[in-house]
């Protein structure tokens, strides 16, 4: 396959960036999108140019590092991560635009790499449970109803990639935050901090400069893990409940 890539190049956080055009020959349909970038970078290195900086780690769709907007869609045209996107989703001769996540809370570090520590700070504000350390507790000591376990697991799937923010027209982190809040708030282990968790995480989310939610639904369409849009309504319910309780 012969593909033309238009990639966002930006030296560092303070520099002006621009799209640069490259052609990659000999790409194969079975290559992943990151392997396409590897191939491009090999070419660039041989030519003595700077390779394109991009985040990646597991390359198997579980770490959430590989952040890039491909043809206007976070993680590209398939519902998966960029590392699990294969070139068979494109046609020979295609021109593909690759850009970094765009949000004030995700400043560009270099090229396609953005700083997503704002998401970590939201987690720090309540995305944990207080448990005594020591040996593993007996598995049946705290019974969890099957539907609750399923709901918790569905939300635990969030890999913190930030595609939801990148997709949102308001740069909102509501889907991410709702995944973290719902994951812990439906479990008995998460009950002691149920109110402070949602209030703290939403406050942290607002403080990081993410936008508000208009229920546009772009986040859930972009999410590689299928976190559903109604999870936001579930978090709103938790937030309203916590706000009422702490007020009264």
């Amino acid at each position, binding site marked *: 396959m012969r593909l033309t890539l238009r990639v966002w190049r930006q030296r560092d956080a303070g520099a002006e960036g621009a799209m640069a055009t490259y052609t990659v020959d000999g790409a194969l349909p079975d290559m992943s999108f990151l392997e396409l970038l590897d191939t491009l970078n090999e070419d660039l290195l041989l030519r003595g140019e700077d390779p394109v900086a991009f985040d990646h780690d597991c390359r198997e769709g579980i770490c959430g590092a590989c952040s890039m907007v491909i043809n206007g869609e976070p993680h590209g045209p398939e519902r998966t991560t960029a590392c699990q996107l294969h070139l068979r989703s494109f046609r020979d001769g295609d021109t593909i635009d690759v850009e970094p996540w765009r949000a004030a809370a995700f400043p560009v570090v270099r090229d396609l790499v953005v700083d997503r520590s704002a998401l970590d700070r939201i987690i720090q504000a309540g995305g944990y449970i207080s448990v005594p350390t020591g040996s593993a507790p007996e598995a049946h000591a705290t019974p969890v109803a099957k539907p609750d376990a399923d709901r918790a697991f569905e939300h635990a799937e969030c890999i913190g990639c930030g595609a939801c923010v990148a997709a949102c*027209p308001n740069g909102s982190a509501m889907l991410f935050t709702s995944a973290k809040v719902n994951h812990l708030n439906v479990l008995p282990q998460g009950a002691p901090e149920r109110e402070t968790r949602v209030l703290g995480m939403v406050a942290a989310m607002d403080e990081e400069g993410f936008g508000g939610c208009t*229920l546009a639904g772009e986040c859930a369409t972009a999410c590689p893990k299928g976190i559903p849009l109604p999870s936001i309504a579930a978090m709103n319910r938790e937030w309203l409940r916590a706000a009422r309780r702490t007020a009264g």
Partner: protein
Amino acid sequence: MALVTKAGRPPSALRAAWRSTIGKKTVMAVSGLVMLGFLVAHVAGNLKVFFGSEEFNAYGHWLRTVGAPVLHHGWALWALRLVLLAAVAAHGVSAYQLSRRAARARPTGYVHRRARTGYATRTMRWGGVILLLFLVWHILDLTTGTAHPGGFEQGRPYQNVVDTFSTWYGNAVYLLAMGAVGLHVRHGLWSAAQTLGAGSPARDRALRAAADATALVLTAGFVSVPVAVMTGVVS
């Protein structure tokens, strides 16, 4: 002195809620539902135009005498107006602040643009502004009579309505605004349900259907009046 000072105290729960994006959305949802409740009553009242001028004008008169003799003439109507004014203000201020915040959250756009979200969702902000402008014109036209075509007569709303919808621009402005109301309610009602925590995967289809149906019935009801005047059914 044992003075209680404000400084250093945590912000009150209400202030903290207003500062939150979810709090502002809650204000939008509640004020939007208040306005929607009014619109439903309004459209039902408008349909009385089909029962003739006497009944329609009597209905307008009743709006001013309702609550008597406990309330003075017009008090109930003014109470309603104050509630609606507060709702419009709360709704508009939250919408403005959230829109500014959204613009700040995405200072740099994407080079590769694509059509995003549905039409109703994309037009919430400008649609809302159109509704606000319409509201001002609508009040000047049919409540105060300041911008009314022909001789405005207090207490004769039937004739006033016929006058307005006998002009091409009266019809044009009104039909455009009613289209905007339909779109706004379509996304707004479903959206308010999510904001107030009523959304869930199992209920999603039902909520969307309810919002679509409400929007459709509302718009059809409002639109039927100018159409009736244009076709001579009401004259």
